[in-house]
């Protein structure tokens, strides 16, 4: 292999070479071992100035982590504090998918459908990578009887930023328009989970001003969230998304609304297909997690819906019609 034109080593070549070198080394490699020997670094290594190479190595490490490849760092007790002696390695235990995890063609068929749900988000690349790994086990999907094309909406402006903050433990500042309020507030929060529940994206976050967990609706984040520079908020690993889902389920068990709908209307069709609705003729009773949010949804059906209870819901819906009438009477014409 000629190594003329050294710096032309492609990124995928460098990253794969780095994986191989770190997996095979028993005691780990120091950064200078890596920069001097691994293809893609060694070609451009310079004994005097390597700050650019250093940065590239840092980026590569985090890129490998985002591919699921965990790099361990080892520091010998007697060398503590001497960062140039930190050794890097990849353990087979962390790298290898356990032998017990295998997939059937039927499971792969389901996973193929699941992966397409993310077509417009950056998560589509991640689901594709996961499928590639599963396919390396040699299985092929069955032909499904009928095609299924799922499409989860991720077109909220804040989606990608929040998702990135989730992954990198970042803190964000954004304007939030609370349901039922007319002016947005500035919030500073560290996202813990994103949950799409009944068609709405929720963000569970640690609110730094309140020093407590708060739930936000993604589409009510009305400014592009800004990262607070140089700061992170370390998360304690937990199933925050499941916790939030559980909380919403419990809240909707505790709060019940009763409405009547016009027979054959869009409102009847849509609201009757809710998960926990009980139907008696045109009278529907169902649970809700947030009064303002429900008011927003019911108001959009206009006169197809008549609210029986609770009273606060009726008031909240009325307020919305008044706001529309006021806006349309003021602005001239």
């Amino acid at each position, binding site marked *: 292999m000629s190594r003329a034109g050294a710096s032309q080593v492609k990124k995928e070549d460098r990253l794969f070479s780095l994986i191989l070198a770190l997996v095979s080394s028993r005691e780990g490699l120091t950064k200078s071992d890596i920069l001097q020997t691994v293809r893609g670094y060694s070609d451009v290594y310079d004994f005097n100035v390597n700050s650019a190479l250093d940065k590239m190595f840092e980026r590569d490490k985090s890129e490998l982590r985002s591919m699921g490849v965990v790099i361990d760092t080892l520091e010998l007790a007697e060398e503590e504090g001497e960062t140039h002696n930190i050794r890097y390695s990849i353990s087979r235990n962390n790298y290898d998918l356990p032998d017990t995890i295998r997939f059937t063609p039927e499971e792969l068929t389901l996973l193929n459908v699941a992966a397409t749900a993310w077509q417009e988000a950056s998560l589509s690349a991640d689901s594709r990578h996961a499928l590639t790994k599963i396919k390396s086990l040699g299985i092929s999907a069955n032909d499904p009887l009928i095609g299924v094309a799922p499409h989860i909406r991720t077109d909220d402006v*804040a989606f990608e930023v929040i998702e990135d903050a989730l992954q990198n433990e970042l803190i964000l500042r954004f304007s939030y328009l609370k349901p039922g309020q007319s002016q947005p507030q500035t919030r500073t929060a560290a996202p813990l989970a994103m949950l799409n529940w009944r068609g709405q994206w929720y963000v569970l976050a640690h609110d730094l001003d309140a020093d407590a967990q708060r739930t936000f609706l993604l589409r009510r984040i009305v400014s592009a969230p800004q990262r607070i520079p140089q700061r992170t908020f370390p998360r304690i690993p937990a199933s925050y998304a499941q916790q939030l889902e559980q909380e919403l389920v419990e809240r909707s068990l505790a709060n019940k609304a009763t409405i009547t709908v016009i027979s054959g209307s869009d409102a009847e069709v849509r609201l009757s297909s809710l998960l926990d609705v009980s139907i008696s003729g045109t009278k529907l009773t169902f649970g809700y997690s947030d009064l303002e949010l429900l008011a927003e949804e019911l108001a959009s059906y206009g006169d197809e819906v008549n609210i029986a209870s609770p009273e606060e819901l*009726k008031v909240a819906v009325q307020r*919305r019609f008044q706001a529309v*009438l006021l806006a349309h009477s003021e602005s001239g014409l």
Partner: protein
Amino acid sequence: MSVSRPRLEAADRVTLLMSFVPYLLDQGPVSVDQIAEHFDISTTEVSGLVQLLALSGLPGGDGLYQHQDLFDINWDLFEEEQIVELWNHVAVDATPKFSSREAAALVAGLQYISGIIPDSDKSVLQALLAKIAEGASAHPENILISAAPVPVDLEIIRDAVRTDKSITFSYLNSRSERLDRAVDPIRLDLVGQTWYLRGWCHARSALRTFRLDRMNNLALSGEPRVSTLTDADLPAELFDVSATDIEVIFLVNKKALPFLSPYKPRVVASVSDDEVTVAVGFADMGAVPRFVMQLPGAITVQSPPEARELVISWAKRSQRTDTP
């Protein structure tokens, strides 16, 4: 096979390189065509990646790569017959674990579509979710989508496809009329929380999209399928975006703009620091009140006057309905 494949990035290629190793070890000699089909990438990509793999390996202490520390393939077989046979591998031989994001993307996607799994197979789903979480190198990222409920029995639709029959149902259209339909089912689409069936409508002799929650009395018909259209023949858009679009101009408070992005509004003019006018296309004027209700008071119809009148009378009517 997917019609258009995304261009491969470095991360895609590294994942493929890691995955080729266990696959080639498991398969023995395998053609470039077969690899391309299995991983759903082009044969050109496969050839490029195989050549890169064959030259990859472990560095010696002096930064030089020695033959015995490299992957190796049967080059003659590769060059003459486009068949890949792995002769030597180093360092790795197993499928790599999933990243926390990869695991989360699959787990959330699975949970979202879980309505298509028959109730009798729900334990399969739980086992599959557990396997993916266990196969991740870090705790799966906290992203979840609750299941979208399926309002009809999908087994009837699957039976129809299996036996080449059509289905019948009574359908409530958007004008509140209920009509009986005979349809050849082609594909299920899930958008947000709403399931749709796309199929060939016998009465109209045309492709139609039906909401599952507007169907009643779904049954397998004795009639055979009449259409030979498949999944691949369907247009990407769920509904016809016809030329008869009605354009409505709104005055919008800037804080409401993020709400409107799914409607792809066109900003017409900036009116003040807080307000802009935008143009949005509608297939049906009846949808304008619901659009305005996304943020009541912050979205005002400017023109046409009919749309403005419609919103005002709609709001007045709605207000009366709810007055105790």
